[in-house]
């Protein structure tokens, strides 16, 4: 499903991604962990071309882009990539001037050109799925953080993505609101959705992820099955990282 080879990205003098290789099968759930600034968010954002990688290649289902080539500058190719991915942001980024329902209907109507009635049915179905059918006509400002993030998930699902990219989906939430978002993501994982998620919550990663990838300094330092990586870390940097995290209450 996902195949990343030799992905590089620099911000000015800083190398953020220093040759990342990653493969992920359909239906697989992978957690990206690592210290702040290790490049995990950037990696996620390269997958839907919100950041333009400098080098390397990327395949997502049937779409393949080689960074730095003329084709990579093609807007249509970028568009295809984005239609195969959905993204969940740490800060939700719901459209504040539209209701929950309108947020979910926006892309089906204006990207997929779905008739309004179909888009409405689709959106209501998805809002029910995340448990917010009764909040359909609320504005984002009238929803709690957890509810907003669930609307954001419904909004991403409305485009029927092959992969859901989650950038710290619960970090901006109060602890008591995290559960509702995590439950939704767990349901999706159980239904076979391919998930690539950046998270600080090791307990959640342990629950949901099939594999864990540890990034540091823009490189993959260690990766493997969840339990192996989290319980028997091989690399000293990972051991140190996990040590710090265990000492901190989650």
């Amino acid at each position, binding site marked *: 499903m996902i195949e990343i080879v030799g992905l590089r990205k620099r911000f000015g003098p800083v190398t953020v991604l220093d040759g990342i290789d990653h493969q992920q099968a359909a239906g697989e759930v992978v957690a990206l962990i690592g210290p702040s600034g290790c490049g995990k968010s950037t990696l996620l954002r390269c997958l839907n071309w919100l950041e333009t990688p400098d080098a390397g290649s990327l395949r997502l289902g049937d779409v393949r882009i080689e960074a730095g080539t003329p084709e990579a500058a093609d807007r249509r190719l970028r568009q295809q990539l984005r239609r195969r991915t959905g993204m969940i*942001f740490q800060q939700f980024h719901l459209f504040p001037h539209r209701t929950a329902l309108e947020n979910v209907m926006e892309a089906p109507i204006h990207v997929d050109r779905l008739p309004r009635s179909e888009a409405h049915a689709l959106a209501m179905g998805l809002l029910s799925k995340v448990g917010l059918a009764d909040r359909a006509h609320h504005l984002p400002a009238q929803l709690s953080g957890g509810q907003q993030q669930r609307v954001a998930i419904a909004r991403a699902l409305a485009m029927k993505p092959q992969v859901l990219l989650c950038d710290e989906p619960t970090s901006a939430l109060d602890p008591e609101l995290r559960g509702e978002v995590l439950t939704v993501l767990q349901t999706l994982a159980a239904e076979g959705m391919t998930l690539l998620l950046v998270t600080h919550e090791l307990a959640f990663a342990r629950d949901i992820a099939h594999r864990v990838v540890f990034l540091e300094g823009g490189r993959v330092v260690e990766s493997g099955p969840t339990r192996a990586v989290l319980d028997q870390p091989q690399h000293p940097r990972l051991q140190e990282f996990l040590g710090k995290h265990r000492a901190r209450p989650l």
Partner: protein
Amino acid sequence: MVWTTSAAQTPEPAIPQVLRWANDAEGGAPYIYHTPDNPDQLVGFEVELAQALCDRLGCTSQFVQYNWANLIPGLRQGGNYDIVIAALERTPENLAQVAMSRPYFAFGQQLVARTQDTRIQSLGDLAGRRIGVLASTLSHRLVTQQGGLDVRVYDENVNYFRDLELGRIDAVLTDSPIAAVQLRTSPNLRAAGPPFAPAYYAIAAPIGSSGLLTRINEALGSLIQDGTLERIYRRYELWGPQQAALATWTAEVVPTTTSGASTDATRSKPVPTLRYVTILIEAAVTTVWVSLTSMALAMTWGLGLALARCYGSRPVRWMAMSYIEVFRGTPLLLQLYFIYFGLAQQWGWKLSAGAAAVLTLGLNYAANEAENFRAGLEAIPRGQTEAALALGLSPVMTLRRILLPQALRISLPGITNDLIALFKDSSIVSVIGLVELTKEFLIRSLDAGDYIGLGILTAAIYLIMGHTASLAARTLERRLRT
């Protein structure tokens, strides 16, 4: 001679050491103007008359610049100048407001048309056609009385001739000396018929200053007698048989001056308020029309500029920024003259007064609206764009569906502010002959001599327009949500 008798009755010197006389240097040739080769020097027959008069009176002459339309109110209020020598006509209307001397100049009304437009010979030939006049003059009153004409009111002499040459109006009615000077330099204009409605210019002094006026009348009489006046007028090619009447003129021709009674009568005469309400509201329609159309243009063009500034390539950004700086950084009046007269003169683009007004205000306010929109666009978190793009929306769609509605809401208070400012700023278009609310107030307050009542009425209309705009904006803001 009526004017030589009263000197003995005022023994104390009525003449100040420095006699301050007022005129508007915008009046132009042959009255008062600057010659192009010596821009520091005021010339004109009224300037020379003032000097000759002061020489004769044994005092120093001091010129005071004052807006022509306000010369009489300024004189009545007192303090700024002692007399007015500024082509004020000796009419019952003026005599009701100020004291006036014996005439110093005789003239008639001259109709001017384009040379090739041979049909026009008199006012009667102008039914339904456009005629330009100077505000609050005898010409203005005559064409209003005539009726059936499309009257365009101007603030100064130069502009209506320019519009006549450009074909924006069909004729000009003006005082014969003004016409004479213009016809010397404009081969494509001609005098349409002989001068008519003979009248006189006279010097104005405050009511009750009979001592001063008597001395002025004596001095004028001697200037006429010894040929000084004729020499001055000949220098300006203004001497003609009709000036012979000056020497033999007697006050019987028009009702005499000096009595303050008529003024008090004017002041206490009740202003026909209801009639003025309708007149002012009609003028407000022009204000609203000009303002709203300009604002629509300003918002459309301003949005384009804001997008160019925020998302354009470097040269596009630079061009948008230059535009904004130029239009924000130069006076509106200058832009208006440039567009109305400049474009017509240079490239033959003859915009109507309304079109020029809307275009100028629109282009000028576009600079402000561009900055309002830019502030709105820049205030939206980057995440909004990312979320929209990640959903697969194209950049154009992202802008239209996600960014602009949010930006508009943020920009709206600033835009509303500008609309209210525009209601007021639009009064500037009166300089190209559009009568809008402020201009109508100025004309009517002069006629009625009432600044307080009509002022409050006019202010109320402006407030209603502004308040309506605020209410509309608040409703729109609610509809844009959050």
